[in-house]
Every structure is written in C-alpha cells, then in structure tokens.
C-alpha cells in the first residue's frame, strides 16, 4: 500500500494486523501514487528484534521498527522525528519533548482542556515528524504515535519546542541553541553512519536557528499551560 506521511508517498507492505490496524484512512494514498521511498524490512530483521525484546510480539515489532525505518528515511527529505507530544493551537505547532513518563502528553492534553477542541488538537502524541519545506519547519502526524492513536495527517508550522521537566512550581526559560542540541539528539533516533549524522546535524543547525527552544518546569495544573503558552506563543513579547 502507499501511505501519505509528512507530505511524502511511502510504499509499505504490512505483514501483521497491528501495523495495518494503526494506519487510519487519512494516511492511505491511492495505489497509483508514485512512491517517494519504500520501506522494505529484510526477512529475519523483525525476528531478531523480537529476540532482543521478548516482551514484544512480532507484530508489535513490525509496528515499532517500520516507524523507525520511516523516520530514518525522512532525513533524505529534510525530516526527522522528535520524541514529543505535539499540539496544534490556532494553526501553529507546539512540541513538548521529554523522556517517557515525564508528562509531555499530560501537558498537551491540558492545552486541549484549556483551549477547547475548536482551537487545539493533538498532531501526534508521541512521535511527530518535523520537515523543513521551502525554508520553514512543519510538524506532521503519522501512524506512529506511541501507545495511543492520537495522530492526525496534518501539516502545521512549528512555533516552538519545549523540553519538559516535572516540578512543584511552573516556570519556563529559553535554552540557548548550543545547549538545546544534545537535548534534541537524545530525543530522536540517532542515525548510523557519519554521512547521515552530518546530514541530521545540518538540519538541526537550521532548526535551532529558526525555532525557539525552552525548558519548561511544570506541574499538572492549568497554570502550567498559562506558563508555557504565554512564553511560547510570544503573546507577551511586547509587554
């Protein structure tokens, strides 16, 4: 089948139901669409992954590693995955990144509570794709969104990225570009091979010069949303 992922046509042939069931119709392109790239999982690869991760089934391995293959190929098209929960508000994307279990999804769902479904929606709850297209970074959903199916096949210009930490009080500060680099590298799939890594670093150089990155310390209250939104939307810029 041909999928439309982050504006690209991707040829993929699911072997198992888990992957097939997580691809919602909005991603399915006509069979006549010309693929930009294909995902071919070599025989034995999933079996190997399953042996390394015995808590997963083969079908779950297919879902996870087909996603990784798509993320890796995105680099050829100016794209990469940032492990984060991405929310669109008023047509702009805000990404909240952190290690699993920190509460990035909790935070973006607080945004939905505060702003309502008319204004805010989840682009991808765990693994949005970012692509540089005609000089601008956009966030995209994809069928790979972690534990939940909260993802949409939409393209939203990226406004800001925050690295989230849990705290008793709410505060947010800008992170200088250089300090943000290792944070981003730790929340994406590091490419293998010098050439691919070089390519990712060029892309991140551009990202860090264009997109502001913040450190958000927050609890689970609506005040946390006020803190992140006010700063990241630059609503108070000219106060």
């Amino acid at each position, binding site marked *: 089948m041909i999928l439309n992922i982050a504006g690209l046509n991707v040829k993929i042939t699911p072997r198992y139901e888990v992957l097939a069931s997580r691809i919602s119709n909005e991603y399915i392109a006509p069979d006549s669409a010309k693929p930009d790239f294909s995902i071919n999982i070599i025989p034995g690869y999933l079996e190997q992954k399953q042996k390394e991760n015995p808590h997963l089934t083969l079908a779950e391995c297919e879902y996870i590693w087909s996603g990784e293959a798509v993320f890796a190929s995105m680099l050829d098209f100016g794209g990469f995955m940032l492990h984060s929960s991405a929310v669109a508000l008023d047509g702009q994307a805000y990404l909240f990144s952190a290690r699993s279990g920190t509460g990035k999804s909790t935070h973006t769902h607080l945004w939905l509570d505060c702003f309502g479904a008319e204004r805010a929606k989840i682009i991808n709850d765990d693994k949005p794709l970012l692509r540089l297209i005609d000089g601008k970074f956009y966030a995209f959903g994809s069928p790979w969104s972690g534990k939940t199916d909260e993802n949409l096949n939409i393209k939203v210009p990226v406004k800001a990225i925050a690295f989230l930490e849990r705290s008793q009080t709410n505060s947010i500060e800008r992170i200088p570009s250089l300090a943000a*680099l290792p944070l981003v*590298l730790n929340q994406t799939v590091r490419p*293998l*091979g010098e050439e691919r890594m*070089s390519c990712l*670093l060029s892309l991140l150089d551009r990202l860090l010069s264009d997109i502001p990155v913040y450190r958000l310390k927050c609890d689970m209250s609506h005040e946390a949303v006020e803190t992140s939104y006010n700063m990241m939307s630059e609503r108070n810029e000219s106060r």
Partner: protein
Amino acid sequence: MKIKPGYVLREVAGSIVVVPIGEATLNLNGMITLNETSKMLWKLLEAGADEDSLTAAVLNEYDIDESTARADVKAFIKKLEDRKIIG
C-alpha cells in the same frame, strides 16, 4: 594516538561540536564542544599524532611558550583518554 571511529565533527549553532554515532554513543553522553585550538588538535588526532607533533602544531599557530602549549595538549589528550575517545 588516534581518534577512534564513530565521531562527527561539525559546526552547529555557531559552535564546533563533536557528536558520537553508533557504539561511540556509549562513551559520550550527548556531545562535546571544541574551540579553534582543540578543533585543530582533533583534526590532527583523526589522522594520528603524538604529543610532540601536537605541541609543535600549537606553537606554530599561537604565540605561546612551549611549556604552556605542551600543558594544553596534555590536558586535551587526558580529556579524550578519560572519555575513551582516543586509543
């Protein structure tokens, strides 16, 4: 002495950074940043160099005395050894 394989040196965000790839990631959490001098030393160490040749390169580039240059080189080598970047 030589830099082990698996590191990419690049300019990002206006700074010179070294980022590990693959297995090298285990020895370096995140990345390191270099200044112009350490970048020069890194480049020489990629090809393979000893303390004397590195000291000579620093003396050639900067107006400092030999003992200072050698101390700088030693400190840089120690840093790389501690992180198991050279072998």
